[in-house]
């Protein structure tokens, strides 16, 4: 019996030829469908190609309807296991919840000039460092800049979330990755809320750029909002 690789869960429908040609098919059960392909033995390699392929499948299907994207690497032992999974009431609840939603990711990054702004109040330390650029003074100065930057990050992230307001149904905040990263937000919005969000980001940018740069990606399937409230089975 062949194992299946799970891309996500959707409603029964026709799979586009481009995906079908890649071996993607649906296992259906009572109005719910698992998006799968057959899988050889062994673990899935987290190569660039495989990761992008997974994203491509769920994002393409999401364009035309609800998709609950599975975590990368999710494998099912058999078709029967897929059917069992689809029968869980939690799956139906998630499909209903996300019928008209999508995820947008909004990341903020600072220009280096933010460091000068943050460092503006640190004149004594800056003078000391310029006079004697030792490791000790450098760490003291850098640490103070780091603290200032952390405050700045928190402040800007709050401004941004407040600015987006009630268009955001739910949000997942991640630690921003990178020294000059400002924030990393996953936003759950209605599909027809995407354009209003774009407009809000423009407004925020008018206030906060420079030094803040925004990157807005989506509409994506609700990657960050498909955690089950309670595990289906302990």
């Amino acid at each position, binding site marked *: 019996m062949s194992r299946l690789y799970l891309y*996500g869960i959707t409603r029964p429908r026709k799979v586009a030829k481009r995906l079908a040609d890649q071996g993607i098919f649906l296992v259906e059960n009572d109005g719910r469908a698992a998006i799968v392909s057959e899988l050889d033995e062994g673990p*899935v*390699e*987290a190569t660039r190609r495989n990761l*992008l392929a*997974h*994203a491509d499948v769920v*994002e393409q299907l999401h364009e035309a309807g609800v998709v*609950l*994207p*599975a*975590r*990368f690497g*999710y*494998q*099912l*032992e058999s078709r029967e296991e897929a059917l069992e*999974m689809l029968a869980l009431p939690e799956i139906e609840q998630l499909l209903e919840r996300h019928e008209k939603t999508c995820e947008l*990711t909004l990341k903020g*990054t*600072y*220009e*280096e*000039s933010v460091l*000068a702004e*943050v*460092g503006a109040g640190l004149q004594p330390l*800056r003078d000391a*460092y310029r006079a004697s650029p030792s490791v000790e003074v450098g*760490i003291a*100065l*850098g640490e103070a*800049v*780091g603290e200032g*930057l952390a405050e700045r990050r928190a402040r800007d992230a709050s401004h941004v979330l407040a600015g987006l307001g009630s268009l955001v149904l739910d949000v997942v905040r*991640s*630690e921003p*990755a*990178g*020294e*000059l990263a400002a924030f990393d937000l*996953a936003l759950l919005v209605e599909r027809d809320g995407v354009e209003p969000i774009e407009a809000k980001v*423009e407004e925020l*940018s*008018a206030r906060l*750029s*420079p030094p*803040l*740069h*925004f990157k*807005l*990606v*989506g*509409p*994506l399937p609700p*990657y*960050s909002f498909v*955690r089950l409230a309670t*595990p289906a*089975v302990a």
Partner: protein
Amino acid sequence: MAVMQRESSAGYITRAPRSSGLADVLEILLDRGLVIDAYVRVSLVGIELLTVDLRVVIASVDTYLRFAEAVNRLDLRAVDDSKSVPDLVQKGGEEIAETKTKGAVEGGMDAIREKIGLGGRGGDDEDDEESSGSRSRGGSNDR
């Protein structure tokens, strides 16, 4: 990237309708997404190479020293600029200012690319192997 840098607010927004690269999908696919405990069979190899160094620890000595250097450099630059302002004003100071901003931003983006660890930098190899072990253990716990 440089094309994006304009005075208008739109110049500071990068817009992508879909995940446009590995950096966009990496964390989202590995950290997020549907998992149902009873059926979890997340079995992976190769993740470590991609995720190592993705989360930059801000509170590191290296970072502090880089911050200190940057503040010092920007500071000195400000001093230099103020000296040469009379010259620049006549020749269009704006143009110069814009070029400088562009440079800073591009530097930032490079730094981020580097942080994402997409390039195989020699120094990461050790970490790769360590987290390789812990990642597989984490995987079996999930079951």
